[in-house]
């Protein structure tokens, strides 16, 4: 508040005895800077400070006076305060003593220690993921024995969220990538007079790789983060603990429906992605490469092999498992704070996208070596 009646803090020496100081004005937070300056310029050799003339005093003023007294090696009882300030001064004097030590250390050994901890943490995360995979599978098997544990409603709900709702995005992205692949491919193939091979280029790349890879990457960004945030928020609000104490299993309740939903929906989305990728190629062919759709389709029919489609589709469940497990596991590892939910969500997206790409590379090598 703009306060017109306040005066800045002031220190004057007493005319009668020079070792006695008189304080006046406002000693409050608004004048903290001026208080510092005034106290810095205060004369030495003081044995009494009369603060009864201070108009306004708050905890900053008292704290600054305490600091001044400590610096000048004065006992605090050299101060005389006005009656109405006594309560404030004694409340602050009572608590202004010990202080905590700084924690974080710097230097080579500390840096090494942090590096070691980071490596150890990564190792632990990898082990946790493998352990989680095993736990989920055992509980999935148990579900066959005790079908009552299965949650059809939750599963269908997640199918809609992760599958149906993602169809437009996946379709659009694949259509565009299909068109780009056809366009760039045709530009190079035209030089060899082999423009018609665009059809094989698009169909093989989409059936084998792009369909499933693009879908998995979209879902890793869209779904893994959603899983982590949903479960993480529940953990931080102790809802997961509540589930446990109610005798239910969070894996049955939260993880398996999400995992099953993704296991069903990711292959379906992959199929849609393939169709739209091929459509992208077809459209570019018709509009700018002078390959009419009839010719395009006939060529595709002649050259397409089922094995490419199967190779692509075979990867989908693996990616689905990976994305859902990483998303759920990161969510379950959230600790209390809102910041932790954010960190875990980022980590789940980064982990799932990179794991999808790494696994896809291994698949490519393996299938090639096997001659499939």
């Amino acid at each position, binding site marked *: *508040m*703009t*306060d017109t*009646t*306040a005066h800045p803090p002031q220190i004057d020496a007493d005319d009668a005895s020079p070792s006695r100081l008189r304080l006046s004005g*406002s000693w*409050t*937070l608004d004048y*903290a*800077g001026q208080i*510092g300056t005034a106290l810095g310029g205060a004369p030495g050799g003081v044995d009494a400070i*009369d603060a*009864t*003339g*201070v*108009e*306004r*005093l*708050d*905890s*900053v003023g008292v*704290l*600054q006076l305490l*600091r001044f007294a400590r610096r000048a090696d004065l006992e*605090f*009882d050299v*101060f*005389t*305060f*006005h*009656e*109405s*300030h*006594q*309560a*404030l*001064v*004694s*409340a*602050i004097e009572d*608590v*202004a003593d*010990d*202080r*905590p030590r700084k*924690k974080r250390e710097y230097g080579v050994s500390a840096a090494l220690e942090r590096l070691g901890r980071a490596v150890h943490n990564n190792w632990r995360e990898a082990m946790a993921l493998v352990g989680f995979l095993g736990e989920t599978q055992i509980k999935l098997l148990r579900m066959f024995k005790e079908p009552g544990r299965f949650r059809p409603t939750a599963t269908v709900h997640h199918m809609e969220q992760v599958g149906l709702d993602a169809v437009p995005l996946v379709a659009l992205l694949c259509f565009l990538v299909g068109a780009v692949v056809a366009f760039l491919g045709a530009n190079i193939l035209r030089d060899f007079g082999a423009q018609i091979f665009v059809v094989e280029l698009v169909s093989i790349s989409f059936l084998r790789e792009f369909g499933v890879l693009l879908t998995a990457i979209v879902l890793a960004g869209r779904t893994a983060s959603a899983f982590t945030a949903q479960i993480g928020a529940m953990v931080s609000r102790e809802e997961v603990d509540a589930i446990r104490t109610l005798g239910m299993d969070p894996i049955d309740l939260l993880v398996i429906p999400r995992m099953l939903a993704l296991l069903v929906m990711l292959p379906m989305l992959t199929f849609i992605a393939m169709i739209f990728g091929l459509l992208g190629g077809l459209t570019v062919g018709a509009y700018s490469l002078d390959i009419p759709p009839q010719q395009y389709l006939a060529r595709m029919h002649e050259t397409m092999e089922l094995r490419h489609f199967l190779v692509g589709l075979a990867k989908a469940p693996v990616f689905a498992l990976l994305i859902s497990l990483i998303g759920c596991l990161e969510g379950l590892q959230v*600790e*209390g*704070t*809102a*910041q932790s939910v954010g960190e875990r969500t980022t980590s789940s997206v980064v982990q799932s996208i990179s794991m999808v790409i790494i696994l896809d590379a291994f698949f490519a090598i393996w299938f090639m070596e096997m001659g499939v």
Partner: protein
Amino acid sequence: MSRMSNATSKAMSDGMHPLCPSRESGQPIVSVRGLVNRFGEQVVHDGLDLDVRPGEIIGIVGGSGTGKSVLMRAILGLREPQAGQIDVLGLNALTDDATQRRAIERNTGVLFQDGALFSSLTVGENVQVPLKEYHGDLPDSLRYELALLKVKLAGLPADALNKLPSQLSGGMRKRAGLARALALDPPLLFLDEPTAGLDPIGAAAFDRLIRTLQQALGLTVFLITHDLDTLYAICDRVAVIADRKIVVCAPIQEVERFDHPWVHEYFHGPRARAARTTREAAS
């Protein structure tokens, strides 16, 4: 501190906070007139009037859903009421004027129910947030010491300063929230159910803390509570919200005798009798 001067000035007549209107002026520090709050069809307040006098601890009670928190949020400007006039520290709380709003925000401290500490910052950093916002020019060391001081005033040990809110118990989080609310030495403090969720011993200690701080810092406290012990122990006046209005606002002995079904039920139920007996035994 041994000798007392008899020099007086108008600003420091009775140990009140400097920005508070003086007690003699009869001017309320918060005044609410004709407040109307509606959520769709549901009317929460209909023509509610309330005056908070400088230097008092006023307790707001009422059944669940009677709009205690809505009243506080309206006074704090967190919610725009459908009608009514609210003045805080002589300024219009419903204004769109940014400097006036900021002046009110600068001079009110709020403790939300669970502390509402920023969970990614340590307790010390939490307390320093308002200091940085309003007094960014303070030297770091002074700001740190101020934060430490406020944390200890709120009754926390010094090493709590480096802890994250998630590492504290519920009671300690409330104390940390109180430390942040006090960071700027506001004349006016709002507490939303400060003792809810604390054990009786912790709640009694928190009551004493509020009383001590109120006297030491010359605060005016607006306190929402369900806790009868708090009402008997520290409130100067009690305002009861019922039937969408403040039905009575008076010292607790008068409120007890007030003739209203909810008030009667509240102050003459088994818990109220217990609280009153404790209070009488103590005094």
